[in-house]
């Protein structure tokens, strides 16, 4: 099947694609159901039961075991202690039941696959109680005989008036209870008017009411904004939020459903504290830089560990997930919670749980949206007249001549930005899921399709993704369950190839090209100039050549021409992340689970580079066609045993586990053919036969990375008041030598729920308060393979003789370091959770995270002569910070209001760099000497480093009077209009020693705010997020190209005394290095707050939608990235990717407007 990318796929085609898998799902579902026996089959089943004078309860137990038939009954409704006798051999069940039940006045009925018992006259509970209730009924409780109780009934609804299915209604102090049925109704017999009914459902506030004289109860459950009853995923298990002791932030599907994000990092951004997230760029499908509690290590390995349904997914490889499939995401932030993931946890652990089916009715949901996106902001550049004026000025100042005789005659010239930006880029997403199940099988299946066009050079910036997921659990017996979670995705990505790079690409070119050069040369005389006539220039569909600038050259090229050289090129990926598990519960409370997981991926690209001539230095004289295939197979096996038990008020759980992990099983093969007899991607094929020397194959494989682990966890609480958790993990890694193969990672955390104490004042002011503290140690082995060994490298070739051939030479790469050991991160965390006035919940954390023995390959002295830099355990770093999460919900009449927010502050500080290394170089920028960032002790990692400007010399007198303590002129060659550089070391000259730390490239605080409101059927959501405390290096201008265009800021340059004290004069050659020194001139505040989402929705009344068999229908209008509060002058202050806070012309994030629809069947 071939995708045609140039045109958007019509809707009806999408629907076709969408429906095929759905059909498959339906068939599967049908099969699951048909396996259930029908009522007649059950009653005709032959059974054996031979008992004398046993209780009815025991008799039923016997039947259950021998016949695999389930019985359901309420002890309050029937007396199961009555003694019965029967001797039945190979009789139909119907006969047996009639024989034993009729005489004691009990009726039975077959409901689905089970038999419900009831008093002949008593009503039968409409829906079987869930297994939880069954367990309780089986307990040896003080079962009272049914004393013709008081029957009560009613309905449980949520705030929207929708029935709550499965809510429990329990008579307080007893085990007597039922759950609500499909319509939210319940019926129950209670002891009397003094009984208290307790209504509860996960995620809602518990309600209690004394029965009194009332017999019909209608409950409206309110969402539990405290979330205390929520279940939190903690790694190899779950825990009630009210008893967690670690620092865990999370989001659940409710918080992001119907929000048009394309990747799940965007879900976490602004919704969780302690995370710094910045989109890598605005290219559709691009990931984001995610940092949990800051930068943990020096190397590249700062990405958190993503664990999807228990499978570790390699860093950043979560693009395959469809957000609609996600049930919850939990971020383990403190070492105490992380320690269960040991060696790979230091940079944070993010647990993703996908949706599972629930027993009950089949739910079919569709959600989709479509809309357009465009740039939120353009950079103001000089037009042709302004450009020529400034160039003249710069040239003359540099001793040159006037370049453009009459600037005003040039008009405005070419606006390159308008040629590459697309104001109506298409975006659409469709997702359909089916879920449901029964006691033995639950399933969740979904299919999603996403298509998004980029807003820059859309022809070469597109993304498509199709997902399929199936999560199933089978529970053939109460003690046994097994299942699978399988996610698959296909991605197809067309990218600019050059984002956040000053070296070419459409954005950098649009910013730096002179406005004089025409986009397309239509004048036949101009088009016949040698540069067009003699070179393989790119032409538009009408045959006119795209303009070539002779003024601005190197990598800066006509973006329209550049686009034509990449048309059709794309990359693709198939990803399967799957696991299968088997769990047995041999004795009550003990669960033994084996899980086998894998991430398997196939990906690659195809690209054709035609012959082109974009300018003198960007040209290609020989076309080539490359096809590359990669495959990756990671697997892991984990076996765990969990035992939990409650003895009196002591509740404990013990987990012991073992895991083996194999990663990096990666293989690459590719081939490039040159000089194919075609001129475009569509015609290119490897079927063309080319001479062997024009066919270059290449390939590689990675060395596997293996981990073997043992881990254990003890969780204990006394009456949910005193809490304790202890973890120990021992990991062995193939990345270390024999001396340091294993690392141990312990942690302990304690909690105290003060509000449970009798002395704690009982009032509404503080209804819940939990104080926590934790300490733990986690590790990091995320660095190169074989670093502890000295390896031999090839490619050190030389040519001997006259045959023009060459010989491969080999030599060691670098000195080895057999003493490499684990990088350790220890973290101390204190926090509290509180509920204030019932509506406001609050979580506060304060932490101190220390990394020691950081694994890093610093640039070693060149005199060592090594080809690469060996890894060493150098450096210590500390992150300290505070986090606050707030949630507030209020209902005023029919108006529901909600406000949630979080703010995090973090301070990074490098505390030690060993081995005599005082500094570590950072990011470079064009020809700025010494780079723009540096890491040093006492500074945050990767701080901006450069010269300090102290304003501009307004006159020669000022230059002359800027003297050192010895009286010598510090900048003798400076002219009025040049920067006055601070002579920080006071040596009377401006040298490299005068550079200093100019600010942090890491945001120090991040925050997010969500406002919700609903009134009747209308709802509104406003979501904003921001970050700040960092500086951004505004590097949009090519410093090394004298003729590169400027932003309009240059209009405010110094032109004479008093004209400017911030923007220096323009002068060719830049003798004072006004622009070619890294200085605070380039640094701008990185503070921003962005309204990321504004959504207005309308839910159709149920009475209306039920007529078309719908359960739910909601339509919404969504605005994305509507506005940003920032002083930053580039496209976008949110800069992620490899180098936070350095803007080399980043692909900005789009502003989008969409209409969405979600339907529930």
């Amino acid at each position, binding site marked *: 099947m071939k995708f045609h990318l140039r045109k958007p796929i019509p809707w009806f085609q999408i629907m076709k694609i969408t429906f095929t898998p759905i059909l498959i799902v339906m068939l599967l579902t049908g099969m699951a159901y048909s396996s259930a026996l029908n009522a007649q089959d059950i009653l005709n089943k032959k059974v054996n039961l031979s008992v004398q004078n046993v209780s009815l309860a025991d008799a039923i137990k016997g039947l259950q075991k021998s016949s695999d038939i389930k019985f359901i009954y309420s002890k309050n409704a029937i007396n199961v202690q009555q003694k019965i006798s029967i001797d039945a051999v190979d009789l139909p069940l119907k006969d047996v039941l009639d024989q034993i039940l009729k005489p004691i006045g009990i009726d039975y009925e077959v409901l689905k696959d089970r038999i419900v018992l009831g008093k002949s006259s008593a009503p039968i509970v409409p829906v079987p109680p869930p297994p939880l209730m069954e367990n309780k009924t089986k307990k040896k409780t003080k079962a009272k005989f049914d004393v013709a109780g008081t029957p009560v009934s009613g309905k449980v609804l949520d705030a929207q008036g929708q029935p709550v299915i499965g809510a429990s209604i329990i008579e307080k102090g007893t085990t007597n209870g039922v759950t609500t049925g499909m319509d939210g109704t319940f019926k129950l017999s209670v002891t009397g008017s003094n009984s208290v009914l307790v209504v509860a459902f996960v995620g809602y506030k518990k309600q209690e009411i004394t029965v009194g004289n009332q017999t019909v109860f209608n409950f409206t459950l309110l969402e539990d904004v405290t979330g205390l009853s929520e279940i939190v995923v903690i790694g190899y298990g779950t825990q009630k939020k009210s008893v967690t002791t670690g620092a865990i932030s999370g989001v659940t599907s409710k918080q992001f459903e119907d929000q048009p994000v394309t990747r799940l990092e965007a879900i976490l951004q602004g919704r969780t504290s302690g995370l710094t997230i910045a989109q890598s760029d605005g290219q559709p499908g691009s990931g984001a830089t995610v940092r949990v509690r800051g930068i943990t290590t020096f190397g590249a390995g700062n990405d958190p560990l993503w664990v999807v349904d228990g499978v570790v997914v390699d860093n950043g490889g979560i693009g395959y997930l469809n957000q609609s499939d996600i049930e919850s995401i939990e971020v383990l932030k403190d070492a105490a919670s992380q320690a269960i993931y040991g060696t790979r946890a230091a940079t944070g652990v993010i647990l993703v749980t996908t949706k599972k089916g629930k027993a009950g009715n089949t739910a079919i949901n569709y959600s989709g949206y479509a809309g357009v996106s465009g740039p939120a902001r353009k950079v103001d550049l000089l037009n042709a007249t302004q450009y020529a004026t400034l160039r003249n000025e710069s040239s003359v100042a540099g001793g040159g001549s006037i370049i453009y005789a009459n600037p005003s005659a040039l008009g405005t010239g070419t606006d390159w930005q308008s040629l590459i930006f697309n104001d109506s880029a298409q975006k659409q997403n469709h997702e359909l899921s089916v879920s449901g199940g029964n006691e033995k099988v639950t399933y969740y299946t979904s299919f999603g399709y996403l298509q998004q066009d980029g807003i820059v050079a859309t022809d070469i910036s597109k993304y498509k993704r199709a997902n399929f997921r199936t999560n199933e659990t089978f529970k053939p017996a109460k003690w046994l369950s097994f299942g699978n979670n399988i996610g698959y995705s296909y991605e197809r990505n067309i990218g600019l190839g050059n984002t956040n790079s000053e070296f070419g690409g459409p954005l950098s070119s649009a910013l730096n090209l002179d406005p004089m050069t025409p986009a397309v040369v239509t004048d036949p005389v101009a088009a016949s100039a*040698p540069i067009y006539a003699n070179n393989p220039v790119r032409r538009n569909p009408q045959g006119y050549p795209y303009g070539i600038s*002779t003024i601005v050259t*190197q990598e800066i090229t006509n973006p329209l021409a550049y686009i034509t050289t990449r048309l059709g090129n794309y990359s693709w990926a198939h990803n399967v992340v799957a696991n299968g598990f088997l769990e*047995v519960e*041999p004795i009550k409370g003990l669960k*033994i689970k*084996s899980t086998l997981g894998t991430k398997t991926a196939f990906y690659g690209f195809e690209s054709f580079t035609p012959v082109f001539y974009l300018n*003198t*230095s960007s040209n290609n004289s020989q076309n080539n066609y490359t096809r590359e295939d990669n495959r990756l197979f990671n697997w892991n096996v984990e*076996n765990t045993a969990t035992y939990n038990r409650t003895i009196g008020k002591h509740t404990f759980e013990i987990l012991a586990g*073992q895991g*083996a992990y194999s990663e990096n099983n990666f293989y690459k093969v590719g081939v490039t053919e040159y000089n194919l007899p075609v001129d475009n991607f569509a015609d290119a094929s490897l079927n063309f036969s080319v001479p062997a*020397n024009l066919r270059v194959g290449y390939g*590689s*494989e990675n*060395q*596997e*990375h*293996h981990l*073997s682990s043992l881990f254990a966890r003890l969780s204990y609480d006394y009456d949910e008041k005193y809490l304790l958790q202890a973890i120990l993990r021992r990991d*062995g890694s*193939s990345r270390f030598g024999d001396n340091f193969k294993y690392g141990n990672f312990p942690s302990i955390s304690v909690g105290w729920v003060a509000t449970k104490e009798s002395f704690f004042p009982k009032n509404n002011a503080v209804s819940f308060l939990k104080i926590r503290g934790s300490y733990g140690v986690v590790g990091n082995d995320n660095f190169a393979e*074989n670093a502890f*060994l*000295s*390896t031999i490298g090839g490619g*050190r*070739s*030389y*040519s*001997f*003789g006259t*045959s*023009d*051939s*060459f*010989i491969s*030479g*080999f*030599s*060691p790469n670098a000195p080895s370091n057999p003493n490499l050991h684990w990088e350790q991160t220890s973290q101390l965390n204190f926090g509290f959770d509180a509920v204030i006035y019932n509506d406001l919940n609050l979580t506060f954390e304060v932490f101190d995270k220390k990394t020691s023995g950081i694994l890093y390959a610093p640039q*070693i*002295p*060149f*005199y*060592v*002569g*090594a*080809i690469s830099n060996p890894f060493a355990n150098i450096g210590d770093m500390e992150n300290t910070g505070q986090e606050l999460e707030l949630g507030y919900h209020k209902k005023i009449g029919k108006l529901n209001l909600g406000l949630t927010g979080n703010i995090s502050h973090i301070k990074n500080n490098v505390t030690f760099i060993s*081995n*005599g*290394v005082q*500094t570590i170089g950072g990011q470079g920028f064009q*020809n700025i*000497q*010494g780079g723009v960032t540096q890491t040093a002790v006492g500074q945050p990692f990767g701080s901006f480093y450069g010269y300090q400007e102290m304003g501009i010399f307004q006159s020669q007198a000022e230059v002359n009077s800027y003297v050192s303590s010895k009286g010598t002129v510090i900048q003798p060659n400076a002219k009025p209009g040049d920067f006055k550089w601070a002579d920080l070391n006071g040596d009377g000259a401006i040298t*490299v020693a005068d550079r200093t730390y100019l600010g942090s490239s890491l945001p120090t605080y991040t925050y997010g705010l969500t406002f919700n409101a609903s009134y009747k059927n209308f709802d509104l959501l406003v979501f904003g997020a921001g970050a700040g405390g960092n500086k951004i290096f505004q590097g949009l201008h090519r*410093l*090394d190209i*004298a003729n590169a265009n400027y932003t309009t800021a240059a209009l405010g340059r110094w032109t004479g005394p008093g004209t400017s004290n911030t923007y220096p004069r323009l002068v060719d050659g830049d003798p004072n290095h006004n622009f070619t020194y890294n200085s605070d001139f380039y640094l701008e505040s990185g503070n921003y707050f962005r309204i990321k989402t504004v959504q207005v929705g309308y839910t159709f009344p149920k009475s209306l939608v039920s007529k078309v068999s719908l359960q739910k229908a909601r339509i919404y209008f969504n605005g994305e990235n509507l506005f940003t509060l920032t002083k930053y002058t580039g496209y976008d202050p949110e800069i992620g990717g490899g180098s936070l806070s350095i803007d080399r012309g980043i692909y900005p994030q789009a502003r989008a407007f969409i209409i969405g629809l979600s339907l529930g069947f």
Partner: protein
Amino acid sequence: MKNMKKYIQYLAVSLVVGSTITACTKSFLTVTPVGTNLEANYYQNQAQAFAGLVSVYDVVGWQGGGFVTKENAMDAASDDHVAGGGSATDISDLQMISNYTLTPAAGPQAELWKAGYSGVFRANVLLGKLPNVPMDAALKARYIAETKGLRAYFYFDLVRLFKNIPLITSPLPADQIYDIEQVAPAVIYTQIEKDLTEAIAEPSLPNTVAIATDGGRWTKGTMHALLGKVYLYEQKWTQAAAEFNQVNGTPGVANPTYGYKLLPNFGDLFKLANKYNSESILEVAHSSQSNGNWGCIACTEGNVLNIITGPRSYTPTASAPDYISGYGFLPITADLFNAIHFDPRNKPTVANLDSLKAKGLCTYDPSYQNTGFFLEKYMGRVSTRSTGSGNFELNFPQNLYEIRLADTYLMEAEALIRGSGDLVRAAALMTAVHSRAYNDNVSHPLPATLAALKLERRLELAGEGHRWFDLVRWGDAPTALASKGFIAGKHEILPVPLNDLTSTKLKQSKEWGGTL
């Protein structure tokens, strides 16, 4: 009870899975590298020893990722060339050495320092390993001699470029990297002399090699020439002259031991077919076969000098030379052009593009600092352009001369003149070189004066990377290069690269504001 059995079965399954994996933990955690040799088990045979030797030779042809080579950097530094290129910042390392704005942080010195010590490292490794390699003893001795010669060559470049350098003669263990300090230049020179003397003394080192297969391998002649050059820089005139005498033999006559003889026609030196000709003593090898591409400029075996010296946007007519359109670097100064204009070596040395353009034979775009004169010796040609895969720009096969016979003739003459030696022989050597330029079977005598020698060296070796070293050696640099920004007492050496001053015990030279 029946069900208990089942439980036990499942438990068993679970435990088996678990224990199997635990049992093989140790081997599970030891992953043998695939496709990567470890130093510990390499150098096991002759082939691996040879691969190690090739890796040392590789550094002779070192080209940095940013196009910087010793040859083009030294050309740019001299009075024969300006940097040129696309703009004042194109290959900024070359610009900075050309106009003397280099600093310890920026300039070509980092690349040249890195190249030198990479060579030293590889030589040190091999010299440490060779004694234990089971292989033919004579061959092993030859490898050792070659490696010592190569190490001497790398140190010689380092010491004359940087003066204050550390002496490292065995690979540095990881924990001793930061303990290194610089030594006096004399200590380095002693090591260089020792290595070269030992190489010369090695009977297994041949006098000549079969050029078809081994052209480029160093011989005793190479070692003598290099040692002579070392002595010349040390101003040990007599010893220098003696070494060169071994190489040069009778002026104008083929050397019976090493086969060295001036090519009759000067222009033939720069023809592709004449690799490893009789005049070649130490050649820097290149190949068009490595398919170098933009992904790794430093990885190619092609010669980057050919593309960077080509005129920009060169568009010839049918009767114009087949130059490749290049990047317009290293335009020849009017000063050199005026000096060489009426010399027979003008045409093979200087491509006068302005003249061609004026005659309507071609068009080209002037580069930054364009003079209209280009380096004919090394400009890429359509005829030498690679037709293989990779980027042709990076795959020119032309070799460079590090030392050729005309050079040793003139160096011997210099040693004789400055060392008050045999001036008759000096004049004969100079005359041989000068007369060859005319190739008319007529003697074109030169006097044995230093002035004549200096001019002859300039004209003979223009564009071959020697001029800057010559000017500095003669003490002429401050005057000759004053207009380019050369400061006496500073620019005679390059600064120690900032990288190697950071966190180490190294000190900057006092010429560059340091303490050494």
